[in-house]
């Protein structure tokens, strides 16, 4: 047992006491988890809370498109939208860190080297996130100087966190990274371990590219995209490849040799297209013309690895006759394979060539792509992992056919996918309309922008987006309820899946 669990003074003691009560109520049992997994479920719980924040502030921002005066000068669109996207990035990152801690001991065959530091890092991160969010909501903006950028808000989409928090995040990520490397070094390395480690080096290193102030906005956005694109369209994709490989091995019993070979293929295709695919963000920010060719060509290839992932997931599932030990997780993994392909792949491809991007860049078209891609590629696989975790946390219970209240996970799956798909289509229609009216016809002037925003088809699209936002919220409510109850009181043990030869 780690020191942190033995010493329980003041606030920490109270928090831990409350957690115990909650554990008892939820019917979960820490003794069924290894050290890394105990830390992982902490990250998962924080992720779910941030997921709720993401949807809540998304609903507020969506409402402001319909009722512009709503919360004016209290919680303006800029604040709601910032919390919406920051909560999303953070919960997905928490999910990934959780997944890594979850599989670390099994994969390395040994105990985590510095679990104690991992736990301290977790609480430091929680405290930092709480302070950052409170400052976002209560202080919001500051004077145009360095103090604001260090303490309140850096004002750069997705990485708005003030500089002090950046430094904190880097320290916590370094602790996490050290844990991963040292644990694999102490235990054993594998293909999955190698890819994971190299990917985390890139993930942590790239964050540094976003920690500098620059007056030259072309340079600033150049480096900003290093973080955003190379995270989301390269290192995160490889990370989910790792998680997918491990999950298919664990819940479907696919052989290690097959998943590892596929993982290498995916890394080659993902980095081969994604690294230079970065160029599709360098069309219009002042960067040289050769990026139109390089960015257009390589980003057009980006869907290929995602097709490979669909083939991989579907073929292996079929080959194993879909016989698996966790039905909800398996369903979400399949949702991930298709969501990633359609959201990141197809929706990205649709507007990635410069000839069309000239008109769609910076319209709701991007929002449409963003919604389906982040959900399809990253929300889904994290949710799959939540189900894998909760199954073990309740004592490795049965989650196959004939599960009690199975309608909940099925409806949560349906509502969430239907909701996000609905928002995506609504935003796509808004994006088409904006590209035609604001961009092509009216030439992107302010008057042109607003004539597109005031157009009935845009307003209709925003109403539908709001409706599907509520559908998504309902799905999330059901998902949380399901995670709190699924397998509770289940007496059957999980099915044993024989690994493939």
């Amino acid at each position, binding site marked *: 047992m780690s020191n942190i669990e033995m010493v329980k003074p003041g606030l920490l003691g109270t928090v831990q006491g409350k957690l115990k009560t909650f554990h008892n109520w939820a019917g979960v049992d820490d003794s069924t988890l290894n050290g890394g997994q105990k830390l992982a479920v902490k990250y998962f719980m924080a992720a779910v809370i941030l997921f709720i924040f993401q949807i809540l502030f998304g609903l507020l921002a969506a409402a402001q*498109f319909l009722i512009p005066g709503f919360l004016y000068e209290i919680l303006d669109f800029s604040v709601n939208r910032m919390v919406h996207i920051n909560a999303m990035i953070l919960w997905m990152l928490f999910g990934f860190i959780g997944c890594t801690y979850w599989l670390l001991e099994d994969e390395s065959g040994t105990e985590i080297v510095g679990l104690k530091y991992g736990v301290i890092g977790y609480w430091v991160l929680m405290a930092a996130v709480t302070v950052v969010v409170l400052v976002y909501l209560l202080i919001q*903006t500051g004077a*145009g100087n360095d103090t604001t950028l260090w303490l309140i808000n850096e*004002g750069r989409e997705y990485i708005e966190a003030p500089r002090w928090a950046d430094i904190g995040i880097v320290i916590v990520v370094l602790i996490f990274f050290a844990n991963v490397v040292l644990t694999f070094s102490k235990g054993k390395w594998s293909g999955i371990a190698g*890819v994971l480690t190299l990917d985390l080096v890139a993930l942590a290193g790239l964050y540094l590219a976003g920690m500098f102030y620059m007056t030259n906005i072309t340079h600033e956005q150049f480096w900003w995209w290093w973080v955003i694109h190379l995270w989301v369209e390269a290192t995160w994709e490889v990370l989910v490849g790792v998680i997918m490989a491990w999950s298919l091995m664990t819940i479907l019993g696919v052989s290690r040799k097959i998943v590892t*070979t596929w993982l290498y293929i995916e890394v080659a295709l993902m980095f081969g297209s994604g*690294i230079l695919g970065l160029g599709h963000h360098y069309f219009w920010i002042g960067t040289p013309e050769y990026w139109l060719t390089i960015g257009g060509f390589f980003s057009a290839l980006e869907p290929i690895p995602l097709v490979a992932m669909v083939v991989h997931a579907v073929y292996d599932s079929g080959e194993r006759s879909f016989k698996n030990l966790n039905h909800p997780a398996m369903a979400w993994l399949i949702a991930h394979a298709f969501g990633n392909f359609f959201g990141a792949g197809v929706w990205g491809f649709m507007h990635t060539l410069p000839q069309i991007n000239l008109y769609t860049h*910076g319209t709701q078209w991007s929002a449409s792509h963003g919604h389906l891609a982040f959900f399809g590629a990253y929300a889904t696989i994290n949710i799959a992992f939540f189900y894998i975790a909760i199954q073990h946390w309740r004592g490795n219970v049965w989650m196959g056919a004939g599960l009690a209240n199975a309608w909940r996970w099925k409806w949560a799956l349906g509502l969430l996918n239907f909701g996000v798909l609905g928002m995506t289509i609504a935003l796509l229609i808004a994006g088409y309309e904006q590209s035609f009216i604001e961009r092509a016809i009216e*030439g992107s*002037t302010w008057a042109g922008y607003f004539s597109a925003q005031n157009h009935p088809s845009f307003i209709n699209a925003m109403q539908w987006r709001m409706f599907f936002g509520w559908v998504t919220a309902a799905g999330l409510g059901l998902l949380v309820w399901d995670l709190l109850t699924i397998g509770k009181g289940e007496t059957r043990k999980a099915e044993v899946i024989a690994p493939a030869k």
Partner: protein
Amino acid sequence: MSETPKWASESFWKKVAVWVTAGSFLILVVLTFDTLKQTTAGGERVQAYSIINKKIDYQFDEKLHKFMPVIGGEELLFGQKFTEDEAEALVTLGKKTTQAKNCMNCHTLLGNGAYYAPDLTKAWLDQGWLTTELREEQMLKFLMDPEKNARTFGSGRKMPNLNITEAEARGVVAFLKWMSAIDTNGFPYNFTTIEAEVE
């Protein structure tokens, strides 16, 4: 089953993954050096900060077949001629203000950001400021008290009051003027500037 052919083996794909990743990254690093060099302020693509002393327009270039910034003669900002250092200081104040006020989570800059308010890439050249004579005054008033000087274009969307001081507002205007001179490869397309209206 017979032995796995080489092209389908784990070790083959491992090597491919390593070489492809390293190769792509190397190309990216080389291109990054070149791009940063080509886009240093004061070059052809990104102008020196003292460009705020000049007239800026944005017109369709028949030969290149795209919209390009057009730099004209002297056109002082706030009736003042700035040295390169003074101009950089002013644009820096403006840039920091746009970050501190979180402009990017409603507007887009160079097309990047949120989609609740208009793009700012060529905001300096927008016809919404009516005439070039009125422009500076209108921009300052709008930035410092956006509620009273709201430009909603019938949408009902008003910019909130962000407590922008006069000095900050001047900085933002200088930043927007400087940004409008960046060669953005023809984005946005078909933009009719305030100059076209006047001429």
